[in-house]
């Protein structure tokens, strides 16, 4: 699509795009180029020079059991976050969609978590499950369950998943509700007149018509779980116990800033870069959005 009417001039438009291009060049392309360049070298032990290792850093990563574990951890984590938050959101959206009056009030209440930063969400959930003072942990203790996410890997994963999913419910809820409201009521009423019960209607009409929204949300939620949950992990578990919650983004941070292993961290950045590119292409190419307000 092109504009028929345009203004003349060459320097003015270049001046207009300049701020964005300059910032993009300095803070996006140069660092990304640096990451690729650094991923091909290792610094010597004194940090004085860089030694070319070709794809050595990548080969090392491929053979590193910690990195492979981190991949699996990330996969489990993002699938769980996506399923939990989309499941809860769909349940709430279906209910809200059935209301003629009052769905606006619920919406106002349900969008709160969107505003809560992942790191703050992490602190809230940490407080509830804190092994010493956490209310939920204490009541679990009363029921005879000894909660300790500091030592138990499964419980640590469960906690970061719930805290991450919690913050994402609003977003998914809004898109599901919009998707549901876009389904023509006449179709559903016709099925109801034919005697189809709620579950039958949901399975045969609503769910298929909702699938573009569902697929879109799946991709977006996986991207969220991959890249935006750092705050949750850092506040609740710091990647532990025994790296059980070290997702890929957390490992780039841990190896690059805490471990000072620049070559490996840069190689990991490049791997993430490829992953995020694939996800972005999937999002643009295959996700056709049919959500309208």
């Amino acid at each position, binding site marked *: *699509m092109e*504009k028929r*009417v*345009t*203004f003349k001039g060459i320097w*003015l*438009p270049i001046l*207009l*795009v300049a*701020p*964005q*291009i300059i*910032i*993009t060049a300095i*803070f996006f392309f*140069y*660092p990304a180029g640096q*990451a690729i360049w650094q991923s091909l070298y290792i610094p010597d032990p004194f940090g004085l020079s860089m030694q070319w290792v070709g794809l050595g850093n990548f080969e090392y990563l491929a053979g590193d059991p910690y990195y492979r574990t981190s991949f699996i951890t990330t996969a489990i984590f993002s699938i769980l976050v996506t399923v939990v938050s989309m499941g809860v959101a769909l*349940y*709430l959206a279906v209910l*809200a969609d*059935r*209301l003629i009056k009052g769905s606006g009030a619920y919406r*106002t*209440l349900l969008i*709160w*978590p969107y*505003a809560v*930063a*992942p*790191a*703050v969400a992490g*602190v809230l959930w940490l*407080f*509830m499950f804190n092994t*010493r*003072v956490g*209310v939920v942990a204490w009541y679990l203790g009363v029921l005879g369950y000894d909660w300790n996410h500091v030592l138990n890997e499964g419980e640590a994963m469960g906690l970061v998943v719930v805290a991450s999913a*919690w913050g994402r419910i609003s*977003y998914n809820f*809004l898109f599901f509700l919009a998707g549901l409201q876009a389904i023509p009521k006449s179709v*559903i*009423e016709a099925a*109801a007149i034919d005697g189809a019960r709620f579950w039958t209607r949901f399975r045969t009409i609503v769910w298929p018509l909702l699938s573009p929204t569902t697929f*879109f949300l799946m991709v*977006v939620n996986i991207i969220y779980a991959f890249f935006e949950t750092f*705050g949750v992990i*850092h506040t609740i578990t710091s990647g532990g116990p025994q790296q059980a919650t070290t997702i890929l*983004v957390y490992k*780039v941070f841990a190896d*690059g*800033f805490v471990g000072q292993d620049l070559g490996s*961290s*840069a190689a990991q*950045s490049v791997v*993430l*870069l490829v992953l*995020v*590119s694939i996800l*972005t292409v999937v999002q643009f190419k295959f996700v056709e959005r049919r959500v309208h307000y």
Partner: protein
Amino acid sequence: MAQQNGMVEKRGAGLWLTHLGLIIGVAFIFFPIWLAFVASTVEQQQIARPPMPLLPGDKLFENYARALSAGVNAPVAQMLGNSLVMALGIALGKIAISLLSAFAIVYFRFPGRKLFFWLIFLTLMLPVEVRIVPTYEVIANFGMLNSYQGLILPLIASATATFLFRQFFMTVPDELAEAARVDGAGPMRFFFDILLPMSRTNIAALFVILFIYGWNQYLWPLLITTDPDMNTIVMGIKQMFPSGDDTADWPVIMATSILAMIPPVLVVVGMQKLFIRGLVESEK
């Protein structure tokens, strides 16, 4: 009953069940926030000896005053100010540079136009989390650690905002630009007098999304603000936890958590219509 189940809109028992289901959902969503609020109104001892009370105490004023004026490492009032500068800087900066570049890309034909468009598009694929180490080095070389420029600039380039404005400018009738040209108005005159006022709603909707994006940043401020006086509130909370075995000052930490969510919640709830519009548009 059979007839009621067949209806599309629920009445009677079904309606109450729907409300009950939603109320359970809302309770689940709000429980963590409620608990944080309660913790911010009681004394440390009440939390240290579990179970803590589930209803607010009478120390609200003291806890919040202590957090705002002293905090743990830095006064929370200071951190709130830093967050505000960062969030506003990112939101307004992104909007400004995106408006200008979208205007250039839509309303001009100039060499490199396609190239610039693709360069901007590519930034979609480079979230800051992916390039933290080299970006940190750039900021360090510029001497921008512990500065507002360092907090804001790397997060300011946004393909999403540029696309949104490009999309919108495409829908503006050509007659308007034509008329401006016939009247002898220059491109910048057209931009400021016609295009900008027409984009008001889009700008406001985007502002809501970007303000929250900026306010809720965590990893980036964590890396580049080593000086507690430059901490933002969202990253500063974690810094309030003691490193060793000491007991955390829960009332102050929870008061800070509540303070950290008030501005974005006000923006989202207060500008709900614009927020939902911005959310849906910016994902297109």
